[in-house]
């Protein structure tokens, strides 16, 4: 019987397999950041252990760094200690680090692909649940806890029970103006936040093939939001083109050998998945969340649902709690929901393609009077590229704040947070209670919806915008 993509990649990394025990899996790349690693390095030190493969390990600072004044010492002493601890650990254990101020600093899931370190057929882990992002290249990539970070540092392996396999086939093409983010928000509303639990998911079908690599990263990024262990997409020519020429990509004969192998990483025709879901992309529309988990979403053109709209009693209770927290009235059209802050950024939508799209929509408009637009590039290179293309000027002229690279308001660990009761439209991936600041209310949206919302001050899509007066120059 044939094997699925994930089974092929899994099998290639099994160091040891014994019945009744999890497999011992080799890890090709271990990404590290300041928040989930200090206790792991401490554990090594206590046990007198080394990092087994510093050459398969990469660290960057992202979760807890400021996006303003990044050249000055971090103001919050506790945050500063955490960042300094990473620097000390990297130095002591010989790990490559891209600290604040470095050209390759940025969100760990933006930096890996950008350097060409993320490649098909790899196993990639990081103490961060959105590691699933790297699955867009056909890698098995998943988030781990700090004990596991320590395990990988010490052994370059992980003990893992083999997950079940699922195929999500998205047929047809996405209509114009509907993005990868809308696709995945649609999917999560369809499956619920626990629908992927225990599975490695392969996204396939015409709509997935048609996505750019950046769009594929957006989809895989949010796999964890419906509970999946990992999400992946079979590598194709687009994938190879994206990787070729990047700093850590193979070259010469190595490139040819790599591509030959990568080309074999496809699900066999006779392979069987444990579960299959089929969705039609052609009927999808811009999608936004109204509640406090990523599965509580509706089309932008719909209204806030009522608890009675749900069949399941626990869904009704959850909806009731979410409406209270979000300060929303059932029946209110989503388009009438007024937003205080628009956040463009994060590992979901903070890459150059995202900023280009946002700038394209905002150009010639101004951010609404009572609304704040925060644009945070995913990495320093994304920021510099955007500045080279003049995108920063477009944002600033529209009245937006243009920031340095990092996670920023995605999780509100640094000073970029919502105030209690404040409402955001956010291109990030989590709308949990308090995620972006205590008492903050988050609506997850795509880049086009974020940009249009910034201009109108209420949840909107670009089709709601008045045409720009001056003839548009392309």
């Amino acid at each position: 019987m044939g094997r699925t993509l994930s089974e092929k990649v899994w099998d290639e990394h099994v160091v040891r397999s014994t019945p009744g025990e999890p497999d011992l899996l080799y890890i090709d790349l271990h990404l590290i950041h300041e928040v989930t690693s200090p206790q792991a390095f401490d554990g090594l030190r206590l046990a007198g252990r080394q990092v087994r493969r510093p050459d398969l390990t990469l660290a960057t600072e992202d979760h807890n760094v400021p996006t303003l004044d990044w050249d000055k010492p971090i103001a919050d002493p506790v945050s500063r200690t955490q960042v300094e601890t990473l620097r000390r650990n990297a130095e002591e254990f010989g790990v490559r680090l891209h600290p604040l101020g470095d050209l390759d600093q940025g969100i760990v899931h933006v930096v890996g692909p950008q350097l060409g370190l993320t490649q098909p057929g790899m196993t990639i882990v990081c103490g961060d649940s959105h590691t699933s992002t790297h699955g867009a290249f056909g890698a098995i990539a998943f988030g781990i806890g700090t004990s596991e970070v320590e395990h990988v540092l010490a052994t370059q392996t992980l003990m893992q029970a083999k997950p079940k396999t699922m195929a999500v086939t998205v047929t047809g093409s996405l209509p114009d103006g509907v993005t990868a983010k809308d696709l995945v928000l649609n999917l999560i509303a369809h499956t619920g936040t626990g629908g992927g639990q225990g599975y490695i998911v392969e996204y396939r079908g015409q709509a997935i093939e048609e996505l750019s690599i950046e769009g594929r990263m957006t989809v895989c990024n949010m796999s964890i939001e419906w509970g999946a262990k990992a999400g992946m997409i079979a590598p194709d020519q687009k994938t190879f083109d994206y990787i070729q020429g990047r700093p850590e990509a193979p070259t010469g004969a190595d490139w040819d050998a790599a591509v030959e192998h990568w080309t074999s990483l496809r699900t066999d025709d006779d392979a069987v998945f444990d579960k299959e879901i089929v969705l039609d992309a052609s009927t999808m529309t811009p999608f936004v969340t109204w509640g406090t988990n990523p599965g509580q979403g509706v089309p932008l053109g719909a209204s806030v649902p009522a608890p009675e709209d749900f069949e399941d009693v626990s869904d009704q209770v959850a909806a009731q709690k979410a409406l209270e927290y979000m300060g929303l009235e059932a029946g209110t059209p989503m388009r009438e929901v007024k937003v205080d802050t628009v956040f463009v950024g994060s590992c979901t939508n903070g890459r150059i393609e995202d900023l280009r799209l946002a700038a394209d929509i905002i150009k010639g408009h101004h951010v609404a009077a009572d609304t704040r637009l925060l644009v945070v590039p995913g990495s320093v290179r994304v920021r510099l590229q955007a500045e080279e293309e003049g995108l920063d000027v477009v944002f600033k002229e529209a009245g937006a704040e243009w920031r340095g690279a990092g996670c920023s308001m995605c999780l509100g660990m640094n000073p970029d947070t919502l105030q209690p009761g404040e409402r955001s439209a956010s291109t990030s991936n989590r709308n949990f209670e308090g995620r972006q600041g205590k008492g903050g209310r988050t609506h997850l949206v795509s880049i086009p919806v974020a940009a249009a919302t910034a201009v109108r001050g209420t949840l909107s899509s670009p089709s709601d915008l008045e045409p720009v007066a001056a003839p548009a120059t392309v």
Partner: protein
Amino acid sequence: MEKFTTHTGVGVPLRRSNVDTDQIIPAVYLKRVTRTGFEDGLFAAWRNDPAFVLNNPAYAAGSVLVAGPDFGTGSSREHAVWALQNYGFKAVISPRFADIFRGNSGKAGLLAAQVDEKVVQRIWDLLESQPGAEVTVDLETRTVRAGEGVDAIEDSFDIDDYTRWRLLEGLDDIGITLGHDADIATYEASRPRWKPVTQHA
């Protein structure tokens, strides 16, 4: 790691589904570089509400948390497990756990017992009608017990065999894996040379 065989303690009914890791411990509390002291961030936002279950003195000494489905969704932060442990919890019961949370619990020595949703309902009812009542989670027999006489509840819980064995023995994963060092070295010798590295010799 300490061995876990069986635990009996005050049960805390948390009547919520989808308790995500941002609720268990918000990001602002993640700045410490130690494994201790996270109890102050546990359910930080909810604890401001006087009606929140942990603010009821009857449950304050709780050590068995009984929650709704999809507990621990979201972030990979092991701090969520540490916060529960630092507070005094030894076990969490839920009809369904998020994968990473369940994995982290097993590594850190917190028992994540998956119990049928109907049984969770009955335990909630019991704990609410008798605040301060105890719940037993017996890892050896994989059973959860609460209440007495006609109200007694007893049912099995799910946990994978390997995690159960490790918890019962109190074994450290890294130590086990280092025992397979030769297998790892053999695997490394066969890795293709074009695989990327972060440092070049």
